[in-house]
């Protein structure tokens, strides 16, 4: 007697147990079956498929011809003496990637002193490392907070300098990718916990004052555009400060972004809190858990994982909304790209500059989106039977 073979799925087990089970017709399964069912199921469907296929192919070929084959990768001269006539001649036919070669340092790091730009580059690397560490669940313990504090301090030291023999660089000269990452990373890192507190506060039926405060905060902040908050932070807020006192413009913008994002996130979190069955609260109460134990162990772990998609939606929106700080004269990534094509020699090459920063934005946003999908399937393991 040989032991029965292990079957990975029920379907296989059934098939093995009964030899008379018929396979589905070959034309209805596999890639051929999929194509027949989805792309060529009727005459109309076939026609639409062929037209779309033609468009996709021709556009792709056009893009390759513009972006690679006919593209200008280098131009003679540099700085003020640059000769961009080759790029001008190729306009419409080929991309001028020479702009990126010439200007990428400015786009990435803005007006930061050229010879010191290894510092913001290192800051970007620290941010990426911070994201990677924070994304790994292995590090989700008390050390993570410490890692963030150390990273925050290191970023401050590197950007400002003035200690350890580093040259002091005033905040007005910072720019490019580090600004975008600072505003969005610390925006999310502070807005998220704040939003949880506000969402919990809004559900406090036993504390009407706390509840009213949270409602007023959410409705007020959500009711105005982010741009107006940034204007208030940059123009109005200093008027209320005592003479001679000055708070960093970047910090003011950062606070405005945190307050704005937290109001939106709070409503997302509240959605999760409301979706949690009442029985979960009651079971936690019946076991004698305190309010914060109940919230920390039972309510939030379940409520937050239910709202991962809208949370990440808001995070991604926030990441891109930081570009609005250009309105108050902060040189974030989008603003440096815009400024890089101001020189007469480079005017008119906006498509190339914006494609470059768009690619950078996309990498960060897509990474967030991909990570959230993984997190979701990981967290929802317990729902599997």
């Amino acid at each position: 007697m040989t032991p029965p073979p292990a079957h990975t799925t029920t379907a296989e087990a059934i098939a093995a147990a009964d030899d008379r089970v018929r396979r589905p017709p070959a034309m209805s399964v596999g890639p051929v079956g999929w194509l027949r069912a989805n792309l060529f199921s009727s005459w109309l469907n076939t026609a639409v498929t062929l037209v779309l296929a033609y468009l996709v192919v021709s556009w792709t070929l056009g893009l390759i011809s513009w972006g690679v084959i006919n593209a200008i990768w280098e131009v003679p001269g540099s700085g003020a003496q640059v000769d961009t006539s080759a790029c001008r001649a190729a306009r419409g036919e080929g991309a001028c990637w020479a702009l990126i070669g010439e200007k990428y340092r400015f786009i990435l790091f803005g007006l930061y002193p050229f010879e010191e730009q290894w510092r913001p580059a290192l800051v970007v690397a620290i941010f990426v490392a911070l994201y990677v560490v924070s994304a790994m669940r292995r590090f989700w313990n008390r050390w993570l907070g410490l890692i963030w504090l150390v990273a925050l301090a290191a970023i401050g030291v590197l950007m400002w300098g003035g200690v350890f023999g580093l040259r002091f660089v005033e905040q007005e000269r910072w720019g490019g990718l580090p600004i975008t990452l600072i505003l969005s990373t610390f925006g999310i890192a502070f807005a998220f916990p704040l939003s949880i507190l506000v969402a919990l506060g809004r559900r406090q039926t036993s504390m009407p004052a706390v509840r009213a405060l949270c409602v007023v905060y959410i409705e007020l902040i959500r009711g105005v555009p982010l741009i107006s908050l940034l204007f208030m932070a940059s123009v109005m807020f200093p008027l209320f400060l005592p003479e001679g006192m000055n708070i960093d413009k970047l910090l003011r913008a950062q606070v405005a972004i945190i307050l704005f994002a937290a109001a939106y996130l709070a409503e997302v979190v509240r959605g999760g809190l409301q979706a949690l069955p009442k029985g979960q609260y009651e079971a936690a109460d019946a076991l004698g858990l305190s309010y914060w134990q109940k919230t920390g162990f039972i309510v939030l772990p379940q409520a937050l994982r239910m709202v991962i998609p809208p949370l990440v939606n808001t995070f991604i929106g926030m990441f891109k909304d930081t570009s609005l700080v250009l309105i108050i004269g902060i040189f974030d990534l989008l603003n440096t790209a815009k400024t890089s094509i101001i020189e007469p020699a480079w005017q008119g090459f906006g498509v190339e500059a914006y494609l470059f920063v768009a690619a950078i934005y996309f990498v960060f946003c897509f990474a967030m989106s991909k990570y959230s999908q993984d997190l979701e399937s990981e967290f929802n393991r317990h729902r599997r039977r």
Partner: protein
Amino acid sequence: MREAMARSETTVRSGIAAGAKPMIQLINVNKWFGALHVLRDVNLTVAERERVVVCGPSGSGKSTMIRCINRLESHQEGQIIVDGIELTDDLKNIDAIRREVGMVFQSFNLFPHLTILENCTLAPIWVRKMPKREAEALAMEYLTRVRIPEQAQKYPGQLSGGQQQRVAIARALCMRPKIMLFDEPTSALDPEMIKEVLDVMVELAESGMTMVVVTHEMGFARTVADRVVFMDRGEVVEVGPPGEFFANPKSERLKTFLSQILGH
């Protein structure tokens, strides 16, 4: 099922010595949901080691009454005294009582994001401040008693309803409560799973736990209960030992109820 329970009848009904220490006292308790008067002058005393079954038509206030005992609902008039502590708005008293009172719900209410073992150890570790290893040993002991130690590392969603309800009982017992409340523990179960849960409850009764059980399982009431309480429209209509309760119902309302519930 009735046969299964008959075996324990002689051992279970040990009788409650007169003058035993009262564990739960409800004195003239009144409660309203908005304008709806859901508990009307409810008086009930449950002695230590006593097993009380509460029955009645739906909407009669029986669930509300036992939910008042651990303050999942608050009452507006009267007194509720549990283990010598009166339930008021004082959070300290509420917490103290909840530590001593275990509850099992109709819909199990296990925490779906935690494993069976974590469900059982969470409260002992954080409320009783028990060391983790000790809490896990205790949880395994109770999971063995409810006959599912092999499921400890699974998640609630992977278990059947009957298994989940037994875990819920083990989870409550891990707090080593003095009183156990059951709010229709078998009403959400498929018929073939009711017995496995009732068997666990019978064993618990045999161990001398003070129990208040809201249920429609009249077989359980007959064999396990020291007293059966009949509630209707927010009032306690009739209380008595099961023999008398089922054989000689005094009120018209109980007679109607029994004929409906036992008639088919």
